[in-house]
């Protein structure tokens, strides 16, 4: 299993190099993601700064991975594609991409360059992951999976996919990515000029949400909002290794977390136990959670969003009661295109509360009071009043063959 982390500048790259030199971690196990502000979501590094890191790495020989993870409309994409093509791509072990456009470009123009495909937004099924994998073939280095996948799914994918898989084990959870600049309009005019060059950071709290203190970043790429709790799976590293997850990512870019680097490496390498580094969690500026690692039940509330009893269910559906006048009549709107309502029919009525009533249809009339022997779709017919029946009651023809 590989240890993946970020280096924003030469200082951080040197620190990583020292850990390799001191045999804290093997250079073949370590992987360092680097970027530049133009193409990386949160990086403040300049292109010159990136080139300096690449030059410095000639000595260190650390496996560098170029991050191109922004989403881009066509005009921005063209500029970024041009920038990427000017970079010394041979110096990178791979390129990390989310935008399918960037993926297509790299596949077409740089077929020799390995790709780490970021599939963090959605991509929660084996079929899709497998198709992405097949699409890239030998060029694919790794699939970077969503934080919303549970242990069970990670386990299955690691067994069934031939591709190496990566998951985040420490760091912020991105909730929202907008291309629009949403913070700078709230800032004083004098400081707005700086926004393109560095990240504007803030925290958002809403009284309409039980959660407070969402970290926010705005920069040239737009606005990012993160969860109020960060992801923490450091107590599951052995398990992830046993599941055959190929790489785990430690995102130490925020909140001075880079200071935890050595402890994380020691923990990863098994030199210390999780109990020895509990302060990483306890001293973190925000609560930390396992996210959906144990289970993802974000679809269970859907059944409560609407009343299934007021939905038409089967081929015997006749229509809906649209009005009830107590002791007078009930108005039935015939919605079925295929059934004809006739005298003698037996009807089943299911109210929105779920009560079931039956009605033997002897007489019925149109809305002018004229008696009818039959009625068809779109007609409104008046039925005898029945206690307990209300508007939105669904009406079905009892299938006599079934009785």
């Amino acid at each position, binding site marked *: 299993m590989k240890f993946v982390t970020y280096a924003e500048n030469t200082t951080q790259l040197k620190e990583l190099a020292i850990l390799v030199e001191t045999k804290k971690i093997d250079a073949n196990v370590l992987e360092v993601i680097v970027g530049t502000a133009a193409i990386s979501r949160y990086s403040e590094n300049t292109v010159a700064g990136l080139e300096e890191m690449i030059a410095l790495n000639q000595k260190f020989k650390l496996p560098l991975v170029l991050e191109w993870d922004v989403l881009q409309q066509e005009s921005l994409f063209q500029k970024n594609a041009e920038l990427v093509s000017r970079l010394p791509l041979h110096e990178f072990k791979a390129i990390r991409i989310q935008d399918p456009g960037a993926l297509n470009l790299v596949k077409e123009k740089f077929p020799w360059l390995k790709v780490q495909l970021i599939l963090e937004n959605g991509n929660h099924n084996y079929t899709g992951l497998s198709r992405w994998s097949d699409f890239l073939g030998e060029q694919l280095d790794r699939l970077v999976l969503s934080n919303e996948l549970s242990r069970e799914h990670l386990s299955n994918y690691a067994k069934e996919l031939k591709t190496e898989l990566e998951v985040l084990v420490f760091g912020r959870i991105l909730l*929202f990515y907008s291309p629009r600049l949403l913070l700078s309009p709230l800032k004083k005019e004098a400081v707005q000029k700086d926004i393109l060059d560095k990240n504007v950071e803030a925290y958002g709290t809403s009284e309409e949400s039980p959660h407070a203190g969402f970290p926010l970043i705005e920069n040239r790429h737009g606005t990012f909002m993160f969860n109020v709790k960060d992801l923490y799976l450091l107590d599951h590293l052995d398990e992830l290794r046993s599941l055959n997850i190929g790489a785990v990512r430690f995102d130490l870019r925020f909140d001075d977390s880079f200071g935890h680097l050595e402890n994380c490496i020691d923990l990863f390498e098994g030199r210390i136990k999780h109990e020895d580094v509990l302060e990483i969690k306890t001293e973190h500026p925000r609560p930390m959670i396992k996210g959906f690692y144990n289970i993802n039940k974000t679809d269970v509330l859907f059944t409560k969003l609407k009343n299934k009893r007021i939905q038409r269910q089967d081929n015997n559906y006749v229509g809906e009661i649209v009005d009830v006048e107590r002791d007078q009549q009930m108005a039935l709107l015939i919605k079925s295109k295929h059934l004809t309502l006739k005298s003698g029919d037996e009807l089943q009525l299911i109210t929105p509360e779920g009560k079931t009533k039956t009605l033997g249809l002897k007489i019925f009339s149109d809305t002018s009071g004229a008696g009818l022997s039959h009625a068809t779709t779109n007609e409104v017919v008046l039925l005898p009043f029945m206690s307990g029946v209300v508007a939105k009651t669904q009406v079905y023809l009892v299938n006599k063959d079934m009785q």
Partner: protein
Amino acid sequence: MKNWTPELLSPAGSLEKLKVAVLYGADAVYLGGQKFGLRQASDNFTAQELREGVEFAHERGSHVYVVLNSFLHDKDLEELPEFLTLLSELKVDAVIVSDLGVITEIQKHSNLVIHLSTQASCLNVESAKLWKKMGVTRIVLGREVTIKEAKKIKEETGLEIEMFVHGSMCMAFSGNCVISNYTQGRDSNRGGCAHSCRFEYSIDMQNEEEAKKAYFMSSKDLEGIRMLTEFIEAGIDSLKVEGRNKSHYYAATVSKVYSEALAHYKEHGNFLSDDLIRWEEELRKISHRDYTTGSLDEYADESSIYNQRESDDNEYVVTGVILEVKENEHILLEVRSAFVPGDALEIMPFSGKTLSHVASSIKTISNIAVPKSKPGSVVKVPYIAGAERFNIIRRKLAEAHV
């Protein structure tokens, strides 16, 4: 000579809304079944309703696209083939998809035409080329793309291009917001969006300045009526209206306005119509946030933020939907908001200007006169020449008696 115009694609949150949208001029509608779409709270369509909806639309020359645009998990995919069989049997015109796994399953189990949902955030030429390789024939572009960029994408890929022309907008890149997942336990990309972006937030700029309260993540609504010439000149194939969760009145008004505008262009080759002001006024009579052209012309900026609380303050209110017209006898109206005899009502015909009418009386179905109609009930009003089943009746809010 008839001029070319794009398809007008309206939302159909229910069978009744489908009928309303088609009757008011939509060339195509999009809708969801009970699963696999992004509007779990919407009525959506049962199999029977879907069958009837497709028949209704096809009989009137309108297309039906079915959304399968959730990011499905493995267990969701297991239930998909049966639904695909139904969609094939019903001959729906296309399915709208955002997940490559879903695309793969569709290709494995059917010959359905596949449109890429805006949820996939396709934003550039190369991205469109990739999705073309995956088998999609139409791209619903991300709302962040300008018309000019869309034209380039169309020209360089040969794909059909669909763009949003009207309605609410996500502030985030579509498919790139999971606020509801972590804060409400509802998967926003499987239909559980809780609209947390519409909340008011207190923004703490970290001692730099005082915290400021703002609806900083809420977007104004898109309105593209003034951009129709640009859409047409760019050859955009389909203009989509957002709003499957919205009302019959919304579906009717937006379908009517845009279809009338496009019909005018088809006939005259321009939008130099006295009706342009009327069309814009009509779009202001439906529930909406402040309008913006979003990124249609240039990338959306600060002016596209709707920094205020959501409200239902509307100039007009829907009185009801006509259920039945008995010529020279009465009209049966499903009441949506209370009104009294003497109120000035406006009937929205399927095309052309509204008909003004004063209801001289209101009666129950059993002909008992009532002083005021009750929302949710069905009442009789005197016959109005020109009114048709599914016409929407409205009145100015000053006239309302809620």
